Protein backbone atom coordinates (compact mmCIF):
# COMPACT_ATOMS: atom_id res chain seq x y z
CA UNK A 1 0.00 0.00 0.00
CA UNK A 2 1.38 3.34 -0.97
CA UNK A 3 0.51 6.85 -0.10
CA UNK A 4 0.81 9.75 -2.44
CA UNK A 5 2.43 12.77 -0.86
CA UNK A 6 0.93 16.20 -1.41
CA UNK A 7 4.46 17.66 -1.40
CA UNK A 8 6.72 17.74 -4.43
CA UNK A 9 9.92 15.68 -4.07
CA UNK A 10 12.28 18.64 -3.38
CA UNK A 11 9.92 20.00 -0.77
CA UNK A 12 9.67 16.52 0.83
CA UNK A 13 13.46 16.43 1.11
CA UNK A 14 13.53 19.89 2.65
CA UNK A 15 10.72 18.84 4.96
CA UNK A 16 12.70 15.75 6.11
CA UNK A 17 15.83 17.89 6.62
CA UNK A 18 13.80 20.37 8.65
CA UNK A 19 12.45 17.54 10.79
CA UNK A 20 15.98 16.17 11.28
CA UNK A 21 17.21 19.61 12.30
CA UNK A 22 14.32 19.97 14.72
CA UNK A 23 15.22 16.59 16.19
CA UNK A 24 18.80 17.70 16.72
CA UNK A 25 17.65 20.96 18.29
CA UNK A 26 15.34 18.98 20.55
CA UNK A 27 18.21 16.67 21.52
CA UNK A 28 20.42 19.66 22.32
CA UNK A 29 17.64 21.24 24.34
CA UNK A 30 17.10 17.99 26.22
CA UNK A 31 20.81 17.73 26.94
CA UNK A 32 20.82 21.30 28.22
CA UNK A 33 17.95 20.51 30.56
CA UNK A 34 19.58 17.33 31.81
CA UNK A 35 23.06 18.70 32.25
CA UNK A 36 22.47 22.37 33.04
CA UNK A 37 24.54 23.16 36.16
CA UNK A 38 22.16 25.94 37.20
CA UNK A 39 19.31 23.57 37.93
CA UNK A 40 21.33 20.65 39.26
CA UNK A 41 23.70 21.55 42.09
CA UNK A 42 26.84 19.46 42.03
CA UNK A 43 27.13 16.84 44.73
CA UNK A 44 30.26 18.56 46.01
CA UNK A 45 28.34 21.81 46.49
CA UNK A 46 25.66 20.05 48.52
CA UNK A 47 27.54 17.36 50.38
CA UNK A 48 30.96 17.24 52.02
CA UNK A 49 31.54 13.54 51.63
CA UNK A 50 34.12 11.87 53.82
CA UNK A 51 37.06 14.26 53.98
CA UNK A 52 38.90 13.60 57.23
CA UNK A 53 38.32 17.13 58.45
CA UNK A 54 37.97 18.02 62.11
CA UNK A 55 37.64 21.28 63.97
CA UNK A 56 35.68 24.52 64.02
CA UNK A 57 35.32 24.86 60.25
CA UNK A 58 34.87 21.21 59.41
CA UNK A 59 31.86 19.77 57.65
CA UNK A 60 32.40 16.04 57.33
CA UNK A 61 29.90 13.25 56.89
CA UNK A 62 29.13 10.86 59.70
CA UNK A 63 30.14 7.22 59.79
CA UNK A 64 26.88 5.37 60.12
CA UNK A 65 23.29 5.42 59.00
CA UNK A 66 22.35 4.48 62.55
CA UNK A 67 23.77 7.45 64.49
CA UNK A 68 23.38 7.67 68.23
CA UNK A 69 22.62 11.06 69.75
CA UNK A 70 23.63 12.14 73.24
CA UNK A 71 21.73 15.08 74.72
CA UNK A 72 24.23 16.80 76.98
CA UNK A 73 22.01 18.44 79.60
CA UNK A 74 19.88 20.15 76.97
CA UNK A 75 17.16 22.59 77.91
CA UNK A 76 13.76 21.05 77.32
CA UNK A 77 13.13 23.32 74.32
CA UNK A 78 16.35 22.41 72.51
CA UNK A 79 15.74 18.73 73.35
CA UNK A 80 12.18 18.77 72.00
CA UNK A 81 13.21 20.52 68.78
CA UNK A 82 16.09 18.09 68.36
CA UNK A 83 13.59 15.25 68.74
CA UNK A 84 11.43 16.94 66.11
CA UNK A 85 14.29 17.35 63.65
CA UNK A 86 15.42 13.75 64.13
CA UNK A 87 11.91 12.40 63.70
CA UNK A 88 10.60 14.52 60.85
CA UNK A 89 13.78 15.27 58.89
CA UNK A 90 16.67 12.92 59.67
CA UNK A 91 14.67 9.75 60.12
CA UNK A 92 12.64 10.33 56.97
CA UNK A 93 15.88 9.82 55.02
CA UNK A 94 17.80 6.55 54.93
CA UNK A 95 19.34 7.53 58.26
CA UNK A 96 17.77 6.09 61.36
CA UNK A 97 18.92 7.98 64.43
CA UNK A 98 18.34 7.08 68.05
CA UNK A 99 19.29 8.39 71.47
CA UNK A 100 22.38 6.96 73.10
CA UNK A 101 22.25 5.50 76.58
CA UNK A 102 25.62 6.98 77.52
CA UNK A 103 28.20 9.40 76.22
CA UNK A 104 31.29 7.58 75.04
CA UNK A 105 33.54 7.23 72.03
CA UNK A 106 30.78 5.47 70.12
CA UNK A 107 28.35 8.36 70.47
CA UNK A 108 27.97 9.88 67.02
CA UNK A 109 26.37 13.26 67.71
CA UNK A 110 26.68 15.19 70.96
CA UNK A 111 23.95 17.80 71.31
CA UNK A 112 24.93 20.67 73.60
CA UNK A 113 23.49 24.07 74.38
CA UNK A 114 24.48 27.07 76.43
CA UNK A 115 24.99 30.80 76.49
CA UNK A 116 28.11 30.51 74.38
CA UNK A 117 30.36 33.50 74.02
CA UNK A 118 33.67 32.35 72.64
CA UNK A 119 33.69 28.79 71.35
CA UNK A 120 35.92 28.55 68.30
CA UNK A 121 36.48 32.27 68.54
CA UNK A 122 33.09 33.13 67.07
CA UNK A 123 31.00 36.13 68.05
CA UNK A 124 28.10 34.23 69.54
CA UNK A 125 24.64 35.68 69.53
CA UNK A 126 23.54 38.59 71.63
CA UNK A 127 20.41 40.67 71.19
CA UNK A 128 22.13 43.82 69.99
CA UNK A 129 24.72 42.44 67.61
CA UNK A 130 23.21 39.13 66.56
CA UNK A 131 26.00 36.66 65.88
CA UNK A 132 26.62 32.94 65.72
CA UNK A 133 23.47 30.99 66.50
CA UNK A 134 24.88 27.47 66.44
CA UNK A 135 27.95 25.50 65.47
CA UNK A 136 28.61 21.95 64.39
CA UNK A 137 32.13 20.61 64.77
CA UNK A 138 33.63 17.30 63.83
CA UNK A 139 35.73 16.30 66.81
CA UNK A 140 37.26 12.96 65.86
CA UNK A 141 37.52 10.95 62.67
CA UNK A 142 37.96 7.35 61.65
CA UNK A 143 40.95 6.41 59.51
CA UNK A 144 38.51 6.26 56.61
CA UNK A 145 37.97 10.00 56.98
CA UNK A 146 34.38 9.74 58.20
CA UNK A 147 33.58 11.80 61.26
CA UNK A 148 33.43 9.64 64.34
CA UNK A 149 31.85 12.19 66.64
CA UNK A 150 30.20 15.55 65.96
CA UNK A 151 29.24 18.14 68.53
CA UNK A 152 26.32 20.45 67.81
CA UNK A 153 26.22 23.59 69.95
CA UNK A 154 23.07 25.67 70.12
CA UNK A 155 23.10 29.19 71.57
CA UNK A 156 20.39 29.34 74.22
CA UNK A 157 20.71 33.12 74.20
CA UNK A 158 19.23 32.93 70.72
CA UNK A 159 17.15 29.80 71.00
CA UNK A 160 15.18 30.84 74.09
CA UNK A 161 13.66 33.73 72.14
CA UNK A 162 13.47 32.07 68.75
CA UNK A 163 10.16 31.38 67.05
CA UNK A 164 9.18 27.79 66.34
CA UNK A 165 10.06 28.31 62.68
CA UNK A 166 13.49 29.60 63.63
CA UNK A 167 14.06 26.81 66.15
CA UNK A 168 13.09 24.06 63.74
CA UNK A 169 15.08 25.62 60.94
CA UNK A 170 18.18 25.92 63.11
CA UNK A 171 18.08 22.28 64.21
CA UNK A 172 17.46 21.21 60.62
CA UNK A 173 20.51 23.28 59.57
CA UNK A 174 22.90 21.97 62.21
CA UNK A 175 21.89 18.33 61.90
CA UNK A 176 22.39 18.74 58.17
CA UNK A 177 25.99 19.76 58.86
CA UNK A 178 26.39 16.77 61.18
CA UNK A 179 25.51 14.49 58.28
CA UNK A 180 27.67 16.31 55.75
CA UNK A 181 25.40 18.92 54.17
CA UNK A 182 27.03 22.19 53.14
CA UNK A 183 25.59 25.69 53.06
CA UNK A 184 23.12 26.28 50.25
CA UNK A 185 22.23 29.35 48.25
CA UNK A 186 18.61 28.31 47.69
CA UNK A 187 15.99 29.45 50.16
CA UNK A 188 14.15 26.15 49.62
CA UNK A 189 16.30 24.41 52.19
CA UNK A 190 17.16 24.98 55.82
CA UNK A 191 20.83 24.77 54.79
CA UNK A 192 20.78 28.37 53.58
CA UNK A 193 23.02 30.45 55.82
CA UNK A 194 21.86 33.38 57.92
CA UNK A 195 18.14 33.33 57.20
CA UNK A 196 15.65 34.80 59.66
CA UNK A 197 12.73 32.58 58.72
CA UNK A 198 14.39 29.42 57.44
CA UNK A 199 12.92 26.51 55.55
CA UNK A 200 12.08 23.52 57.71
CA UNK A 201 13.59 20.69 55.71
CA UNK A 202 16.43 19.59 53.46
CA UNK A 203 15.66 19.90 49.76
CA UNK A 204 15.46 17.01 47.33
CA UNK A 205 19.07 17.25 46.13
CA UNK A 206 20.31 17.23 49.71
CA UNK A 207 18.05 14.33 50.61
CA UNK A 208 19.36 12.46 47.56
CA UNK A 209 22.93 12.96 48.68
CA UNK A 210 22.13 11.80 52.19
CA UNK A 211 20.40 8.71 50.89
CA UNK A 212 23.17 7.95 48.41
CA UNK A 213 25.87 8.18 51.05
CA UNK A 214 24.33 6.47 54.08
Amino acid at each position, binding site marked *: MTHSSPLPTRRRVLHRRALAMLSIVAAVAAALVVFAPVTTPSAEAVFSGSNGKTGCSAVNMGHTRYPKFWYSGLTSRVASHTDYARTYIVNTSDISSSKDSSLDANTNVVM*ADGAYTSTC*GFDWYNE*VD*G*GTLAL*TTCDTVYSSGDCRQHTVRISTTYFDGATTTQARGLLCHELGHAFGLMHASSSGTCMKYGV*TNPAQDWDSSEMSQINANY
Partner: protein
Amino acid sequence: MASSRLSATKIGVGALIALTLSTAVATVINLQEGRAESVPTAVATSPASTDRGANETAEYAIALLGDRTAGTDNGAREKTFADLLPNHTFQVGSAEPVALASGIVIGTVTGVEPGSAYSADGGSDAGSELDFADPDALWREIVLTVSVDSALGEVSGDATVRIGLAIDGTADIDKATAGFESLGRIIAVLDGPGEFAFDPEVYSVRQGGGLVGLVAEDGSISFPYLGEKNAEFLDGLDTVTDVLTEATGPDVISKVERAGASPSQD
Protein backbone atom coordinates in the same frame (compact mmCIF):
# COMPACT_ATOMS: atom_id res chain seq x y z
CA MET B 1 17.65 2.14 9.44
CA ALA B 2 16.99 5.81 8.84
CA SER B 3 15.40 5.94 12.24
CA SER B 4 18.42 4.24 13.80
CA ARG B 5 20.83 6.64 12.15
CA LEU B 6 18.74 9.58 13.36
CA SER B 7 18.75 8.17 16.90
CA ALA B 8 22.50 7.73 16.70
CA THR B 9 22.82 11.32 15.57
CA LYS B 10 20.70 12.48 18.49
CA ILE B 11 22.77 10.49 20.94
CA GLY B 12 25.98 11.76 19.41
CA VAL B 13 24.93 15.38 19.63
CA GLY B 14 23.53 14.86 23.10
CA ALA B 15 26.75 13.23 24.23
CA LEU B 16 28.79 16.06 22.76
CA ILE B 17 26.70 18.64 24.57
CA ALA B 18 26.84 16.57 27.73
CA LEU B 19 30.61 16.31 27.51
CA THR B 20 30.96 20.03 26.96
CA LEU B 21 28.67 20.91 29.84
CA SER B 22 30.23 18.33 32.11
CA THR B 23 33.54 20.03 31.56
CA ALA B 24 31.96 23.30 32.60
CA VAL B 25 30.51 21.69 35.71
CA ALA B 26 33.85 20.13 36.55
CA THR B 27 35.41 23.58 36.41
CA VAL B 28 32.88 24.84 38.91
CA ILE B 29 33.49 21.83 41.12
CA ASN B 30 37.23 22.39 41.04
CA LEU B 31 36.77 25.99 42.08
CA GLN B 32 34.51 24.95 44.92
CA GLU B 33 36.94 22.29 46.04
CA GLY B 34 39.65 24.88 45.87
CA ARG B 35 37.77 27.07 48.27
CA ALA B 36 37.20 24.24 50.67
CA GLU B 37 40.80 23.14 50.69
CA SER B 38 43.22 25.90 49.99
CA VAL B 39 42.20 28.44 47.39
CA PRO B 40 39.68 31.27 47.66
CA THR B 41 36.86 31.17 45.18
CA ALA B 42 34.29 33.90 45.39
CA VAL B 43 36.99 36.50 45.58
CA ALA B 44 39.28 34.65 43.21
CA THR B 45 38.33 36.92 40.36
CA SER B 46 38.16 40.11 42.37
CA PRO B 47 40.87 42.71 41.90
CA ALA B 48 41.94 42.29 45.50
CA SER B 49 42.86 38.66 45.26
CA THR B 50 44.13 38.95 41.72
CA ASP B 51 46.96 41.04 43.10
CA ARG B 52 47.84 38.15 45.33
CA GLY B 53 47.06 35.51 42.76
CA ALA B 54 50.58 34.14 42.54
CA ASN B 55 51.05 34.17 46.27
CA GLU B 56 50.12 30.73 47.56
CA THR B 57 51.17 31.74 51.04
CA ALA B 58 48.57 34.51 51.18
CA GLU B 59 45.99 32.22 49.63
CA TYR B 60 46.30 29.85 52.56
CA ALA B 61 45.34 32.64 54.96
CA ILE B 62 42.57 33.81 52.66
CA ALA B 63 41.15 30.29 52.55
CA LEU B 64 41.22 30.14 56.36
CA LEU B 65 39.15 33.33 56.44
CA GLY B 66 36.80 31.99 53.78
CA ASP B 67 36.15 28.71 55.55
CA ARG B 68 35.33 30.17 58.93
CA THR B 69 31.60 29.67 58.87
CA ALA B 70 31.29 26.28 57.18
CA GLY B 71 29.62 24.58 60.14
CA THR B 72 27.71 27.48 61.65
CA ASP B 73 24.53 29.46 61.28
CA ASN B 74 24.61 33.17 61.85
CA GLY B 75 22.20 35.99 62.55
CA ALA B 76 24.47 39.02 62.46
CA ARG B 77 22.66 42.31 62.81
CA GLU B 78 24.50 44.01 59.99
CA LYS B 79 23.31 43.29 56.50
CA THR B 80 25.55 45.71 54.66
CA PHE B 81 28.93 47.26 55.25
CA ALA B 82 27.26 50.64 55.82
CA ASP B 83 25.60 49.21 58.94
CA LEU B 84 29.05 48.93 60.52
CA LEU B 85 30.20 52.50 60.04
CA PRO B 86 30.45 54.72 63.14
CA ASN B 87 27.74 57.08 61.87
CA HIS B 88 25.23 54.21 61.54
CA THR B 89 23.72 53.31 64.93
CA PHE B 90 21.04 50.89 66.07
CA GLN B 91 18.49 51.33 68.81
CA VAL B 92 16.90 48.33 70.48
CA GLY B 93 13.70 49.44 72.21
CA SER B 94 14.37 52.57 74.23
CA ALA B 95 18.06 51.85 74.79
CA GLU B 96 20.75 54.26 73.62
CA PRO B 97 21.60 53.86 69.95
CA VAL B 98 24.91 52.07 69.51
CA ALA B 99 27.29 51.52 66.64
CA LEU B 100 27.71 47.84 65.91
CA ALA B 101 31.46 48.05 65.32
CA SER B 102 33.94 49.87 67.49
CA GLY B 103 36.04 50.89 64.53
CA ILE B 104 37.34 50.17 61.07
CA VAL B 105 41.01 50.02 60.24
CA ILE B 106 42.68 50.07 56.83
CA GLY B 107 46.36 49.34 56.69
CA THR B 108 49.14 46.88 56.04
CA VAL B 109 49.88 43.76 58.05
CA THR B 110 53.39 44.11 59.42
CA GLY B 111 53.56 41.23 61.86
CA VAL B 112 51.85 38.11 63.21
CA GLU B 113 52.27 36.81 66.76
CA PRO B 114 50.94 33.76 68.55
CA GLY B 115 48.18 34.33 71.10
CA SER B 116 46.62 31.38 72.83
CA ALA B 117 44.88 28.10 72.09
CA TYR B 118 41.83 26.36 73.49
CA SER B 119 40.07 23.07 73.65
CA ALA B 120 36.33 22.78 74.21
CA ASP B 121 35.41 19.20 74.89
CA GLY B 122 31.90 18.02 75.50
CA GLY B 123 30.18 21.12 74.22
CA SER B 124 31.68 23.49 76.76
CA ASP B 125 32.13 27.15 75.88
CA ALA B 126 35.65 28.48 76.34
CA GLY B 127 37.04 25.18 77.51
CA SER B 128 40.63 24.88 78.63
CA GLU B 129 43.51 27.11 77.64
CA LEU B 130 46.38 25.22 76.05
CA ASP B 131 49.87 26.02 74.85
CA PHE B 132 49.64 27.81 71.55
CA ALA B 133 51.07 24.91 69.57
CA ASP B 134 49.20 22.17 71.41
CA PRO B 135 47.99 19.70 68.76
CA ASP B 136 44.74 19.16 70.67
CA ALA B 137 43.62 22.78 70.23
CA LEU B 138 40.16 23.24 68.78
CA TRP B 139 41.04 26.80 67.87
CA ARG B 140 43.99 29.18 68.18
CA GLU B 141 44.18 32.92 68.45
CA ILE B 142 46.81 34.95 66.63
CA VAL B 143 47.52 38.67 66.60
CA LEU B 144 48.07 40.76 63.50
CA THR B 145 49.86 44.08 63.81
CA VAL B 146 48.49 46.53 61.26
CA SER B 147 50.26 49.71 60.24
CA VAL B 148 47.33 52.09 59.81
CA ASP B 149 46.75 54.32 56.82
CA SER B 150 43.08 55.13 57.56
CA ALA B 151 40.92 54.42 60.58
CA LEU B 152 37.43 55.14 61.84
CA GLY B 153 35.83 54.98 65.29
CA GLU B 154 37.80 54.07 68.42
CA VAL B 155 41.03 53.46 66.55
CA SER B 156 40.95 56.75 64.66
CA GLY B 157 44.37 58.39 64.95
CA ASP B 158 46.23 55.24 65.98
CA ALA B 159 49.43 54.52 64.05
CA THR B 160 49.21 50.79 64.62
CA VAL B 161 46.36 48.53 65.66
CA ARG B 162 46.70 44.97 66.96
CA ILE B 163 43.87 42.68 66.01
CA GLY B 164 43.22 39.11 67.12
CA LEU B 165 41.90 36.36 64.92
CA ALA B 166 40.79 32.83 65.67
CA ILE B 167 41.97 30.13 63.33
CA ASP B 168 40.95 26.53 63.26
CA GLY B 169 43.00 24.15 65.40
CA THR B 170 43.71 22.03 62.35
CA ALA B 171 45.30 24.91 60.44
CA ASP B 172 49.04 24.72 59.81
CA ILE B 173 50.46 27.33 62.21
CA ASP B 174 53.53 28.17 60.14
CA LYS B 175 51.58 28.46 56.89
CA ALA B 176 48.90 30.53 58.56
CA THR B 177 51.47 32.87 60.11
CA ALA B 178 53.28 33.32 56.82
CA GLY B 179 49.98 33.70 55.02
CA PHE B 180 48.66 36.46 57.21
CA GLU B 181 52.03 38.21 57.13
CA SER B 182 51.83 38.31 53.35
CA LEU B 183 48.26 39.62 53.09
CA GLY B 184 49.48 43.16 52.49
CA ARG B 185 46.85 45.87 52.69
CA ILE B 186 43.68 44.90 54.51
CA ILE B 187 40.50 46.40 55.90
CA ALA B 188 39.17 45.08 59.20
CA VAL B 189 35.94 45.81 61.01
CA LEU B 190 36.68 45.83 64.72
CA ASP B 191 34.78 44.92 67.82
CA GLY B 192 36.09 46.35 71.03
CA PRO B 193 39.24 45.22 72.80
CA GLY B 194 38.90 42.89 75.78
CA GLU B 195 37.87 39.71 73.99
CA PHE B 196 41.25 38.04 74.26
CA ALA B 197 42.32 36.84 77.68
CA PHE B 198 46.00 36.73 76.75
CA ASP B 199 46.03 40.48 75.96
CA PRO B 200 43.02 42.68 76.79
CA GLU B 201 44.25 45.48 74.52
CA VAL B 202 43.99 43.43 71.35
CA TYR B 203 40.96 44.25 69.21
CA SER B 204 38.71 41.49 68.00
CA VAL B 205 37.24 41.43 64.49
CA ARG B 206 33.55 41.57 63.79
CA GLN B 207 31.74 38.33 62.87
CA GLY B 208 34.14 36.10 64.74
CA GLY B 209 37.15 37.30 62.80
CA GLY B 210 35.39 37.05 59.47
CA LEU B 211 35.41 40.70 58.53
CA VAL B 212 39.02 40.96 57.52
CA GLY B 213 38.96 42.09 53.93
CA LEU B 214 41.54 42.49 51.22
CA VAL B 215 42.32 45.84 49.63
CA ALA B 216 43.58 45.78 46.07
CA GLU B 217 45.97 48.27 44.53
CA ASP B 218 43.02 50.16 43.05
CA GLY B 219 41.43 50.43 46.49
CA SER B 220 38.67 47.91 45.89
CA ILE B 221 37.59 45.74 48.81
CA SER B 222 36.64 42.09 49.13
CA PHE B 223 35.87 39.90 52.12
CA PRO B 224 36.84 36.26 51.43
CA TYR B 225 34.72 35.15 54.39
CA LEU B 226 31.55 36.35 52.70
CA GLY B 227 32.04 34.31 49.56
CA GLU B 228 29.27 34.93 47.06
CA LYS B 229 27.57 37.36 49.45
CA ASN B 230 30.49 39.80 49.19
CA ALA B 231 28.87 42.15 46.66
CA GLU B 232 25.53 42.09 48.47
CA PHE B 233 27.26 42.99 51.74
CA LEU B 234 29.36 45.79 50.23
CA ASP B 235 26.21 47.19 48.63
CA GLY B 236 28.07 49.85 46.70
CA LEU B 237 30.84 50.55 49.21
CA ASP B 238 33.24 48.85 46.88
CA THR B 239 36.40 50.83 47.58
CA VAL B 240 38.22 52.37 50.51
CA THR B 241 37.23 55.77 49.19
CA ASP B 242 33.55 54.76 49.16
CA VAL B 243 33.79 53.64 52.79
CA LEU B 244 35.55 56.77 54.01
CA THR B 245 33.11 59.00 52.13
CA GLU B 246 30.05 57.21 53.50
CA ALA B 247 31.47 57.46 57.03
CA THR B 248 31.48 61.25 56.81
CA GLY B 249 27.79 61.34 55.81
CA PRO B 250 24.87 62.17 58.10
CA ASP B 251 24.11 60.05 61.15
CA VAL B 252 21.70 57.19 60.57
CA ILE B 253 19.74 55.66 63.48
CA SER B 254 17.86 52.42 62.85
CA LYS B 255 15.25 51.19 65.30
CA VAL B 256 15.40 47.45 65.47
CA GLU B 257 13.80 44.41 67.00
CA ARG B 258 15.64 41.58 68.64
CA ALA B 259 18.52 40.50 66.40
CA GLY B 260 17.76 37.41 64.35
CA ALA B 261 14.03 37.97 64.60
CA SER B 262 13.66 41.05 62.45
CA PRO B 263 11.90 40.42 59.12
CA SER B 264 14.33 42.86 57.55
CA GLN B 265 17.08 40.34 58.08
CA ASP B 266 15.88 38.07 55.29
